[in-house]
């Protein structure tokens, strides 16, 4: 039995030795061979997609975009057992980093490190798949005579706008631009050299950008917009949350801007202040800073409120009083450093869409909707007279009301709800109160060819010279898209249009504002819902071209966008400084024009 075991072990050992010798004899040594090479986006953050090389003999050719190639990871396939080295360093596919800014050689040997084959990796430039102008400017040193300073273009899609001074000579300007490596830039077939080529920019100039192999082109139109002034951001007010409806006005006596607003009640319960939330606040903007001139000085404010300054600079506010039932209108004024009530219960039923204008300290007009009618209150310094407007035909149910005025007259703009009168769809009215009586400047009006007066994109203002300006929206021109249309009321009792319609299709939330500078220039501001991020755009009517300017887009670039109605408010002081405010994330943003 013991002998048998010995024989079995011996036989097994002999078999193992024989097997081992047999295996050694059959070892396969693959000749060096590199068959595939690529750069994968997953291994290289600078690449947006995978780039596969062609391997031709010992040449490896790959085209990469214009990216930093100093630290790229290659993925390669070699025969089993092959060893790959670059400058003596062993390579691992998908792991090892190399500098591909210039050609490098991959040396592949068999598993014994013998029979080396050198593969040269040639990296060339791939044609730009999205040729574009990525920067555009007129450098001051290259346009010293015409401009004297550098002007940087704003690139929006394929349009490049450059704001230039009003009187600049734009017939011979040298543009500086950047584009992707290998791209060619031409204008009317003439190759452009950044910082060298001269063009006449009296009309828009189209730059064609062509990629390396001509397979993709793009066109960029450069338009120079003559600017009357410049918009700059002012300090944001965020001491307390600001509710919708804040309004900025300028004291006609000393040009100091005032803002009145309702304090916003935060959604979070622990952030609320029941004593102050939803009550009125007032601010002044003095020496570049906001000053509080009234804090939670009212009853709780309902859904609507408005603010005005009399010609002598006395502030008045009107608001839907949320502390009474029904919620009717209360009016307060500021004098001697405190706020006091000058009118309560202006109305007998709940009011809405409340607006007011002070012709004088003792002539304040409140217009509002009550019981589906326009309802007016007039303060004469000691008492209120209330009722409808006799001159307003049929007192149709209003959809919206706005007010404006000066020291002589108050004006009410209103849009009738649906076919409230004579089957006219959302007709609009402009009514004038001269301190004694009302008259109609326009009633139940709908522009010929329009489906309706737009229920966004409207506002009314009175210019420093007393001219009434109106911005409304309609689709009269093509029965399809709604555009802003600005009109003014002439001394002869007619209305005339200011320029063509503004080149912007009204969105459903285009709550616009109109303001007139002391030199008579008309400005319109509106939320550009189509921009990303959303912006507040401002255009002005260019008296030289009789055309609306290209828009200037304002936004603080903090990544926070306004939601819904940004509650624009827009006014000029007597020296031509513009103040434009809006609300974003319960903060009051302001831009100044000068």
């Amino acid at each position, binding site marked *: 039995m013991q002998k048998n075991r010995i024989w079995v072990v011996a036989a097994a050992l002999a078999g193992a030795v024989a097997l081992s010798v047999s295996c050694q004899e059959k070892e396969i040594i693959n000749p060096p061979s590199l068959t595939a090479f690529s750069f994968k986006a997953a291994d290289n953050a600078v690449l947006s997609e995978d780039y596969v090389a062609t391997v031709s003999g010992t040449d490896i050719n790959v085209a990469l975009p214009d990216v930093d190639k100093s630290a790229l990871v290659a993925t390669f396939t070699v025969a089993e057992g092959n060893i790959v080295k670059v400058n003596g360093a062993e390579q691992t596919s998908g792991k090892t980093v190399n500098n591909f800014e210039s050609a490098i050689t991959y040396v592949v040997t068999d598993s014994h490190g013998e029979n080396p084959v050198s593969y040269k990796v040639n990296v060339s430039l791939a044609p730009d798949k999205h040729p574009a102008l990525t920067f555009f400017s007129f450098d001051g040193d290259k346009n010293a005579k015409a401009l004297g300073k550098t002007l940087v273009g704003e690139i929006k899609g394929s349009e490049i706008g450059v704001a230039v001074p009003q009187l600049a000579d734009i017939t011979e300007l040298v543009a500086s631009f950047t584009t992707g490596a290998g791209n060619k830039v031409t204008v009317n077939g003439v190759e452009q050299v950044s910082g060298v080529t001269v063009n006449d920019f009296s009309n828009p100039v189209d730059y064609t950008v062509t990629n390396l192999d001509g397979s993709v082109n793009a*066109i960029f139109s450069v*338009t120079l917009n003559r600017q009357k002034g410049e918009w700059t951001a002012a300090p944001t007010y965020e001491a307390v949350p600001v509710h919708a409806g804040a309004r900025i006005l300028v004291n006609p006596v000393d040009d100091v801007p005032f803002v009145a607003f309702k304090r916003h009640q935060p959604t979070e319960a622990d952030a609320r202040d029941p004593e102050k939330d939803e009550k009125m606040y007032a601010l002044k903007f003095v020496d570049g800073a906001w000053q509080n001139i009234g804090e939670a000085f009212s009853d709780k404010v309902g859904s609507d409120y408005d603010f005005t300054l009399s010609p002598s600079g006395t502030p008045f506010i009107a608001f839907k009083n949320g502390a009474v039932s029904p919620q009717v209108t209360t009016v307060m004024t500021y004098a001697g450093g405190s706020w006091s009530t000058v009118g309560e219960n202006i109305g007998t039923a709940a009011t809405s869409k409340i607006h007011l204008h002070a012709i004088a300290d003792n002539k304040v007009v409140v217009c509002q909707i009550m019981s589906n009618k326009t309802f007016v209150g007039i303060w004469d310094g000691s008492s209120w007279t209330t009722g409808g407007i006799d001159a307003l035909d049929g007192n149709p149910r209003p959809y919206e009301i706005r007010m404006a005025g000066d020291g002589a007259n108050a004006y009410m703009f209103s849009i009738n709800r649906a076919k409230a009168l004579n089957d006219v769809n959302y007709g609009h009215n402009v009514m004038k109160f001269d301190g004694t009586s009302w008259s109609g400047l326009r009633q139940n009006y709908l522009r010929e060819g329009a489906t309706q007066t737009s229920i966004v994109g409207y506002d009314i203002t009175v210019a420093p010279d007393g001219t009434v300006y109106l911005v409304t929206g309609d689709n009269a*021109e093509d029965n399809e898209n709604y555009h802003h249309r600005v009109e003014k009321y002439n001394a002869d009792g007619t209305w005339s249009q200011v320029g063509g319609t503004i080149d*912007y299709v009204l969105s459903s939330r285009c709550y616009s504002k109109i303001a007139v500078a002391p030199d008579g220039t008309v400005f319109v501001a509106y939320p550009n819902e189509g921009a990303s991020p959303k912006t507040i755009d401002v255009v002005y009517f260019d008296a030289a071209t*009789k055309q609306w300017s290209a828009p200037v887009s304002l936004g603080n670039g903090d990544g926070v966008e306004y939601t819904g109605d940004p509650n624009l408010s827009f006014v000029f002081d007597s020296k031509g400084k513009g103040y434009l405010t809006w609300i974003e994330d319960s903060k009051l943003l302001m831009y100044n024009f000068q």
Partner: protein
Amino acid sequence: MKLKYILLLAAAVLLAGCAKNELPLFDEPFVYVETSTGSNVSVVGADMKATVTYYIGISCPAFTDPIVVNFAVTCGSGVAEGVDYDVVTPGGAVTFLPGIWRMPVRIQWKDHAIDESKDNTVTIAITGTSPGTFTIGFPGPAAKGSKLVITKKNL
């Protein structure tokens, strides 16, 4: 059994209904002209002194050879080229290179009062393409976008 017949009947009605609502398929390449906001009509003030950009667009599969679109600018009896407007884009044609789908056509408007009793329109009309495989205007009987009519008005 009754349920089976009801289901069959419902399916038949549904199929018949779908067939009736089937819309014609328009998938041929086409070319159109419009304003910057996509309209085929526009109004300009008679006193305007500015250049306005209009656009000719093409809709087709990706292409490698340039496509040429010819256009003509004509006007009514109330306005005249050189007096009321100038065509800035030369040659009556725009060339679309590969990757470009919209080309500008510009008119410089001049301050000149018009007689409102006359035809004060300026029309940009597409007259042909090369290659000639493009439908002029959006596909469909209305051929919307085959021309853009701009009316000059005393505002």
